[in-house]
């Protein structure tokens, strides 16, 4: 468990303290995939680097499994960092070392593993990230996705309990992003590893995260389970991210809605209710006519969800609302 207790960070620029992270309380549970989303400069990069103290905080305490890591001396800190893997947007592999040597590197630095142990572990990890055939290649000979898989293998070498991902998929194409995210999800499930992932893409959060924190201007402005934050965003920044990820143009949406008659509702289906043939029966029971203004069906991690924006005309609106709510559909009246 990672606990932030009033953690803050500011930088001295020209004698003035510029806050990068305002005092923040946050708890990341063991074994969860925790996403931190924000625009560049929002402070998410600082936040993730506080967890392994690449950036020391200027105030507050960081507890990891009830130990205050901000009290560590240099040697304790080095030992602690071996238990926290990290992967990066630009992979940061050593160009002078082969794939196998890159993966072995943290184990060699630790100085507590025998040659045989290192060799076995490297082979096991190469197989885990499907790169066994590339063991003796140099990073420059690999594609972006392959490089990131080397990065993941390297981060896992010393069997960490936490994996930090710093925009790990931002330099990858959509298809490769998907495969890397799948690998991360598999690792999280199989190894019970806690993953903290920062990204500027809500889509990444939607696919792999259990919970998410949204950052804006050095503050966590919204935090909660991904389905809550994603389907019912409260803060304007969060809304921006959700709209962005759905490629919805807000002005266009408003224009579309203004053309529709009657009441406008947004229905959110989650889990099993996504697949139920609900609208027809509600329409028959209540006598309302509806037209679909927009809609989408997708998954949040493994849970299916759907969101429909409808305009309703005629009939008994109350009966319709009741019937929808009775079927576990979240109803929001937009107009």
């Amino acid at each position: 468990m990672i606990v932030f207790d009033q953690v803050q960070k500011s930088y001295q620029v020209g004698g003035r303290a510029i806050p990068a992270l305002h005092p923040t309380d946050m708890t990341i549970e063991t074994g969860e995939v925790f996403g931190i989303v924000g625009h560049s400069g929002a402070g998410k990069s600082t936040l993730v680097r506080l967890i392994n103290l690449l950036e020391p905080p200027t105030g507050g305490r960081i507890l990891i499994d009830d130990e205050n890591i901000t009290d560590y001396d240099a040697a304790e800190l080095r030992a602690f960092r071996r238990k926290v893997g990290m992967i990066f947007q630009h992979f940061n592999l050593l160009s002078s070392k082969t794939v196998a040597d890159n993966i072995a590197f943290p184990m060699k630095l630790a100085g507590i593993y025998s040659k045989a142990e290192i060799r076995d572990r490297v082979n096991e990890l190469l197989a885990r990230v499907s790169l066994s055939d590339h063991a003796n290649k140099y990073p420059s000979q690999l594609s972006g996705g392959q490089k990131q898989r080397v990065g993941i293998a390297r981060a896992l070498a010393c069997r960490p309990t936490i994996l930090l991902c710093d925009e790990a998929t931002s330099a990858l194409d959509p298809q490769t992003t998907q495969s890397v995210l799948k690998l991360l999800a598999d690792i999280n499930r199989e190894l019970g590893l806690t993953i903290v992932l920062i990204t500027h893409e809500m889509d990444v959060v939607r696919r792999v995260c259990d919970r998410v924190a949204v950052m804006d201007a050095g503050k966590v402005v919204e935090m909660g389970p991904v389905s809550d934050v994603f389907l019912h965003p409260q803060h304007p920044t969060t809304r921006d991210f959700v709209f962005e990820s759905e490629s919805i143009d807000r002005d266009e949406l408003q224009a579309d809605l203004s053309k529709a008659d009657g009441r406008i509702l947004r229905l959110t289906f989650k889990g099993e209710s996504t697949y139920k043939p609900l609208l027809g029966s509600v329409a028959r029971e209540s006598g309302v006519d509806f037209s679909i203004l927009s809609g989408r069906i997708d998954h949040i991690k493994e849970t299916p969800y759907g969101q429909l924006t409808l305009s309703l005309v005629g009939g008994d609106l109350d009966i319709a609302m009741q019937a929808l709510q009775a079927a576990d559909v979240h109803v929001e009246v937009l107009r």
Partner: protein
Amino acid sequence: MEALLSNVDWSEIGWASWDTLVMVGMSLLFSVVIGLPTGVLLFLFGKRQLLEQPVAYAVLSFVVNVLRSVPFIILLIVMIPFTVMLIGTSLGVAGAIPPLVAGGAPFFARLVETSLREVDRGIIEATQAMGASVKQIIFGALLPEALPGIIAGITVTAITLVSYAAMSGVIGGGGLGDLAIRFGYQRFQTDVMVITVALLVIFVQVLQMVGDRLVLYFSRK
């Protein structure tokens, strides 16, 4: 042919070439031994680097700059008392080596500093995140990553030392430069001059070629 190169004493040329090789080789060795750690320190003490030390950086940088800003021909003369103190003579092959190192080491140190700066900061950060100590970061990540640049730096330094070594002929340093000055210039033996210059050119070409090959071999980018 015989008449054209009438003044050329080939065994003299041979010895002079050997002397040049020894001067360049030895001074290169010491320049690397002194310049490499100096360059690493310059890098580490620099702004926003691992061991940021503004005062130490300023001092070290000043010394390097002073040695680099003195024209080598002056450095040769200024160094004479130190050279005598250090090895007993300021003449011959041995006497030329201390001023060559005084010129070569700071030059190489700057090249090392530059090539270390070109190592991606992300690699240093990643290595730090693995729990590496500063020593491990230097030897495990920084130097291997900067190796091609450092080899290129050694090549440039070696070539600079060839020309410096030739210059040391002025103060009786020995080697091809000495030959060129004593025979080629002072006795107007143009043929000796041409041969020494040709040999120096060949020498530099070979150094550059070998250096380039090594850089290519160690570049994995």
